[in-house]
């Protein structure tokens, strides 16, 4: 049984002080060797694990034949953002989970191969093929992974697509949330340029709901609208001390670092350079925030998670990278209060230990407090990364748009909302999830819009 070929990494000692990308990607030889581990199964179990159904064995076969551009074209048929997915998808719970090689040994490193193909394509500057435009206009609200995917598919089908983005640059969570060392912004920019080459227009600084409403867009002649506004609103724990100086929502901390470049020497954006940092949560956002804090010069970074290692929602590879960099995980631990000094600056985090009880609605065992287990952790920065809720602005400013009790936009199986010709998907519908799930929703809506407008 052959072993999976690991990707080379910048060593932990060097990278914990640097924002440059950690994983270096395969060389051509490595990609060929790894591709040759693919058994090219007839029934393609891996494809069933891919939310956007990339024909994985087919693109790997092209790699084996050294036809890398051919491999790109196969991926491009199903995914508009392969250089991004190859880096941030949780492959171990998706495609690679179903790989036959993985039953007895290591699954084929599908994500690494996808990244190789996408990077090869961009390094060799293959121009995007222009499609013929029809005269139908579609508006997309939000330029995160969901909106970009929807835009890509619609543009390829000939529609005139305009993306409206509230921030000053496009990319949504790909630029404000995911850090440079995991997803270089140059990669995001290339994927976005790819879309503008296809004829997609991106209007930044456009906060829909305020500068224009969805009804304004409809009256301007947009025949369909896709709402991919994400789940921007950070959740807090509602415990004492959460407003102390030095306590951040992960969104704010990451936005200061990634979007506003607070890590660069001459940045105009301030950020706390904490020495003892605690991050609360167990998802990718928590791990990203912890690794950013480390790179900003923290001496001690802890991740506080109320369940055990087995329930960690973060991508496995990132958890390992974080541990290698020296980040400490406190499993089965829950904060109950944040303490501060007279200057209103955070000083300690009061936590309790938890144990796992009966399974809850999510099927995961519910953590319960261990009696008498209270303890104090000295901190100067606390980052809360316990999830986000959908932004209420679109809902507040759009008639006929039904939302659930927690704010998610309600859609049917085609991605259509309760308002005619208005579609929605991604975190705005599901609450905080993954990049690839958001892309899947964008694809679904694009398919429905194409069918509806080509009737």
């Amino acid at each position, binding site marked *: 049984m052959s072993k999976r070929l690991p990707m080379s990494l910048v060593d932990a000692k060097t990278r914990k002080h640097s924002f440059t990308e950690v994983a270096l990607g395969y060389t051509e030889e490595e990609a060929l060797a790894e591709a040759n581990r693919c058994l090219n199964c007839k029934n393609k179990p891996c494809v069933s694990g891919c939310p956007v159904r990339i024909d994985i064995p087919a693109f790997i076969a092209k790699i084996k034949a050294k036809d890398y551009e051919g491999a790109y074209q196969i991926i491009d048929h199903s995914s508009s953002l392969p250089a991004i997915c190859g880096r941030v998808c949780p492959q171990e719970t998706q495609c690679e989970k179903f790989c036959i090689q993985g039953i007895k040994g290591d699954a084929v490193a599908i994500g690494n191969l996808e990244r190789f193909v996408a990077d090869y394509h961009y390094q060799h500057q293959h121009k995007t093929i222009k499609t013929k435009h029809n005269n139908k206009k579609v508006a997309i609200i939000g330029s995160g992974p969901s909106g970009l995917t929807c835009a890509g598919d619609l543009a390829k089908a000939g529609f005139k697509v305009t993306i409206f983005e*509230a921030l000053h640059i496009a990319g949504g969570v790909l630029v*404000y949330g995911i850090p440079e060392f995991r997803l270089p912004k140059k990669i995001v920019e290339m994927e976005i340029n790819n879309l503008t080459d296809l004829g997609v227009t991106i209007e930044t600084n456009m906060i829909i709901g*305020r500068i224009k409403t969805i009804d304004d867009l409809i009256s301007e002649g947009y025949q369909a609208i896709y709402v991919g506004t994400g789940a921007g609103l950070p959740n*807090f724990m509602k415990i004492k001390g959460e407003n102390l100086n030095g306590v951040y929502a992960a969104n*704010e901390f990451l936005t200061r670092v990634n979007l506003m470049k607070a890590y660069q020497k001459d940045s*105009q954006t301030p950020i706390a350079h904490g020495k003892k940092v605690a991050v609360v949560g167990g998802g990718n956002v928590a791990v990203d925030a912890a690794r950013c804090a480390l790179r900003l010069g923290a001496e001690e970074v802890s991740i506080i998670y109320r369940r055990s290692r087995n329930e960690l929602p973060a991508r496995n590879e990132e958890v390992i990278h974080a541990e290698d960099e020296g980040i400490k995980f406190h499993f089965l631990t829950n904060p109950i209060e944040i303490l501060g000094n007279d200057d209103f600056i955070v000083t300690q985090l009061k936590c309790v230990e938890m144990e796992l009880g009966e399974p809850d609605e999510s099927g995961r065992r519910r953590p319960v407090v261990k009696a008498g287990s209270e303890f104090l952790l000295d901190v100067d920065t606390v980052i809360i990364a316990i999830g986000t809720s959908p*932004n209420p602005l679109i809902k507040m400013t759009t008639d006929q748009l039904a939302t659930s009790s927690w704010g998610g936009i309600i859609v049917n199986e085609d991605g259509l909302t309760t308002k005619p010709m208005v579609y929605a998907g991604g975190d705005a519908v599901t609450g905080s999830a993954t990049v690839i799930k958001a892309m899947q929703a964008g694809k679904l809506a694009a398919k429905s819009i194409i069918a509806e407008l080509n009737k």
Partner: protein
Amino acid sequence: MFDIIKKEELNTTVIKMDIKAPLIANKAKPGQFIILRVNKDGERIPLTIADHDLINGTITIIFQVVGATTLLLSKLRVGDQLSDLVGPLGNPSQLDNLKRVIIVGGGVGSAIAYPLAKALHEQGCEVTVILGFRNKELVILEDSFKQVCDNLAIMTDDGSYQEKGLVTNKLAEILDIDTKYDEVITIGPLIMMKYVALLTKKYQVKTIVSMNPIMIDGTGMCGGCRLRVNEQTVFACVDGPDFDGHQVDFDEAIKRSKMYSDFEHHQYDDTCNLFSKEVE
């Protein structure tokens, strides 16, 4: 890019600018704000929309030079451009059915109070305005206010113009005689709004304050602008910026506003040095 159409110095540190932004002008309502970036790597700063002009497609901002970004902004001239401008953000002030209102403005906050006074005056409301400044040199918009209010009182800390004293002295004087006001609206330094709210609570007059905390995106995403209002955490950008002054935890807001003061002073000094070098 957004063109600067007009620029006027209201006093030595307060500047008024008209910026071409027809889409924002088209939707702007009193109480709303914008976020701007002066240049490509610049900080995002929130500023209240002081006025808007539908015919010329412009919005007006009035700002005081307090930090690096406002200093950079103040150096721009007519014909220069802002890198980014987004808005209108926040909920408009609720002015419906108001018949009798006192507006209390402090310093540059007076500029933000002006569009409210104007809107209320236009809807036939009786408007009393109290403005407070440190001294005569800093008094702004006196003539503009005169056009849109029934009574105007200007207070200066040192008595160098009109009455000596704080806005709260004048407000107490008015409320001692008559408390039948629908609302007191106050905009200015946090410490001033805190004492206005404490005073009006005694007289049981509803008081609206306009909060302008540290924020990044202005869309609810960062959570940096959170405040305690009525024991709940709210976001100034999407839940405000106007709140019931009797419910706001001002002491917390004041402490939160100082989170980056060291960095801000440092940045300001650096930017000052940059400009003085240019002059040399």
